C-alpha cells in the first residue's frame, strides 16, 4: 500500500509519515503543490492525504486535476479550515473524507484504513485479527465465528482499536473518535472506561483473549500479548 502525504508544515508531515510508516504503508510526502503534482504524475498511490492550503495552489485544485486522470486512489483532505463549504466542495469533487486539524494520528490512520478497505475489498470487506472477525459493511462482529452483539459505541471502539493495533491510543483520540464535537466540553473522559470495560467483558465472554491493556491512565493499547 502506497500513500502520499501532501502537507506543507514540516513537523506535521513528519509525524503523519512516521505514524503511517509504522503501519506498514509505503509512505511518501510532498510539501508543495508542484511537488505533489509531479509525484502524482510519476507514481501510482493507493491513498492521498491532502492539505487544502498549499504553497503554489490549493489541495482542492490538486484533487480536481488528479481526478481527471481517473485514478483509483482514495483521498482524504486534512484542513485547518472547518468551513462547511470547503468540506462539501471537497467531497463533491471526489474526496472520500475530510478531517479538520488538529486531529489525532490514530484517527487519521483509522480513516485511511477505512477508505482503503472500501476501495480495495469491495463487497468482500472483512477485518480478521486472530479469533476476531469484523464485517465493516454490515457492522457485524464474530469471535470464533460466533456473532457478538455490541452497542454502537463498543463496535466503533473495537474497530478503532483494530485499526490502530499495537499502538497506544490516547483517551483523547478515543473520545474524539466516538463522540466527535460533543466531547469538546466534557469535564473528564472517565465514561470511556465504562465502554472499554463492557467491550472487554463481552469479548472474553465469547472466548476471546484480553487484548486491551491500559497505558498509565493516558490511553489504551490493543495488543496481541
Amino acid at each position, binding site marked *: 500500500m502506497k500513500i502520499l502525504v501532501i502537507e506543507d508544515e514540516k*513537523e506535521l508531515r513528519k509525524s503523519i509519515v512516521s*505514524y503511517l510508516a509504522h503501519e506498514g504503508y509505503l509512505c511518501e510526502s510532498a510539501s508543495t503543490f508542484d511537488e505533489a503534482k509531479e509525484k502524482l504524475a510519476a507514481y501510482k498511490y493507493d491513498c492521498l492525504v491532502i492539505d487544502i492550503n498549499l504553497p503554489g495552489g490549493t489541495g482542492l485544485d490538486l484533487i480536481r486535476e488528479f481526478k481527471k486522470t481517473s485514478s483509483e486512489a482514495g483521498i482524504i483532505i486534512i484542513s*485547518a479550515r472547518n468551513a462547511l463549504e470547503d468540506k462539501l466542495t471537497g467531497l463533491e469533487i471526489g474526496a472520500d473524507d475530510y478531517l479538520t486539524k488538529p486531529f489525532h494520528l490514530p484517527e487519521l490512520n483509522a480513516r485511511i484504513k477505512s477508505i482503503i478497505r472500501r476501495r480495495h475489498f469491495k463487497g468482500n470487506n472483512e477485518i480478521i485479527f486472530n479469533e476476531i472477525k469484523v464485517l465493516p459493511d454490515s457492522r457485524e462482529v464474530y469471535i470464533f465465528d460466533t456473532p457478538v452483539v455490541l452497542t454502537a459505541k463498543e463496535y466503533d471502539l473495537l474497530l478503532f482499536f483494530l485499526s490502530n493495533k499495537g499502538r497506544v491510543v490516547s483517551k483523547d483520540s478515543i473520545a474524539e473518535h466516538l463522540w466527535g464535537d460533543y466531547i469538546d*466540553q466534557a469535564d473528564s473522559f472517565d465514561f470511556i472506561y*465504562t465502554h472499554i470495560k463492557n467491550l472487554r467483558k463481552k469479548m472474553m465472554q465469547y472466548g476471546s483473549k484480553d487484548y486491551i491493556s491500559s497505558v498509565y491512565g493516558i*490511553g489504551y493499547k490493543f495488543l496481541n500479548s
Partner: protein
Amino acid sequence: MKLIQKTTLYYLAYILIIFIIGATLFYFLIRMVLLDSIDEGLRQERDQIVNNLMYEREIEELIPSKNVIIHKLPSYSNEKDEYKIVPMFDQELQEEIDYRQLKSNFTYNNGYYQITIRHSLQEAETLLKGLFPIVIIMFLFVLTGVFLINQLIIKKLWEPFYHLLQLLRNYDLNKSKNIPYQHSNIQEFNELSLSVEKMTSRIYNDFLAQKEFNENASHELQTPLAVIKNKLDLLIQSANLKEEDMEAVRAIYASVRKLTSLNKGLNLLSKIDNRQFVQTETIIIKNIITRLLQEFSDQIQEKELKVTININENASINANAILTDILFSNLISNAIKHNLFGGEINIYATSSHFSIENTGKALSVSSETMFGRFKKDSDNPQSIGLGLAIVKKICDSFGYTVQYHHENSYHSLHITF
C-alpha cells in the same frame, strides 16, 4: 417627522408671519389713505359752507342738519381744526356707525362760530373688511402652492436620496459588495452616493479582512495545535516513558484540548458575527433534543442525572441548523457540567419558548455578567467560559431573548423565540 412635513411646517410658519405683517401694514396703509381722502372732502365741504354763509342773512336761521352743525361761540377761540372718529347711533340702521368728524372755528359778522361736519365711515369700513377674505384666500392659495411644490420637490428632486435610503436599509454584506454610485443631476446627492459607495466598499473590505483574519488566525493556530497533538500521539508510543513523563503528557493533552476548543469557540463567535450562517430551515425541537441527549448520554449516566423532558410534539423553530445544534448542545452540556452528582435536568419547550433547568450550587459569577466571554465559575477550572457567550450570541443573531434565573438551587435558562 418626515422631511416633507418639516419643510412644509417651516414654509407655513414663514408664510404666516409674512401674511400677518403684510396684512396689518396693508390694512393701516389703506385706512390712512381712505381717511386722508375723507378729511380732504370734509375740509372742502367746510370751506364751501363757510363761503355760502356770506349769502345768508342770519346764521341762527339756518336749520341744523344731521351732518352739519353750526353754533355760536361765546368768545374767540384759536383752536385748530380737529379731525376725529366718533361713533354715533343711526336711527335708520339701528346700530352704531363710525363717523369722521371735523370741528372748525370761523368768524362771521364779528361773531365767533364753530362748525362740525361729519362723514360716515361705513363705506370705508366695508372696503377694509372686504380686504380680510381676500388676504385669507391668497394665503390659502400660497399654502396649497407651497405644499404641491414641496410634494413635487420631494418626489422629483429627492428621489435619488430616497432610493439610496432604501438601498442602505436593505444593505447586507452577505448579499452585495457595496452600494454602487448612482448619478443624479444634483451635486449633493452625487457626493452622498459617492461617499456611500466608498463607505460600503470600505465596510465590505473590512468585513473581508476580518473574515480572512479569523480564518487565517484559526488556520495558523490549528496547525501548531495539530503538530503538538500528533507529536504527543507519537510520543506515547515510546516504551521508555516513565510514569511522571506520562503525567506530563496527560497534562499537555488536556491543555491542547482546551486550546483547541477555545480556538473553535472564538472562531465560531466571529463567524456568527460575520453572519456566515444564513440558511434557515424548520427544526423540530423534540427531534434535536432527543438526539443531543443521546449524544450526551454517557456524560449524563456518569453523573447519574435524572433528565425530564416536556416538549410539545410539534414545537419547531425556523433557524440555521448548525447554530441550533450548537445552541442546544451548549445548553445541555452546561446543564450537565454544572450539575450535582445524581441531580436533575428538566427541559420544557413549545414553539414560542424553551427552558432548561438543572440542580446545582450557586454560582460565583453574577447572573448579569454570566453571558460575557470568559466569565466562568471559579469552581470549574476545566470550563473555558465561552459556552454561554456562544449561547447569547446565537440567540442574538436569531433575535431570541435569553434569561437566567437561580431559584431554590435550580439554575434555569429561558429562551423566548
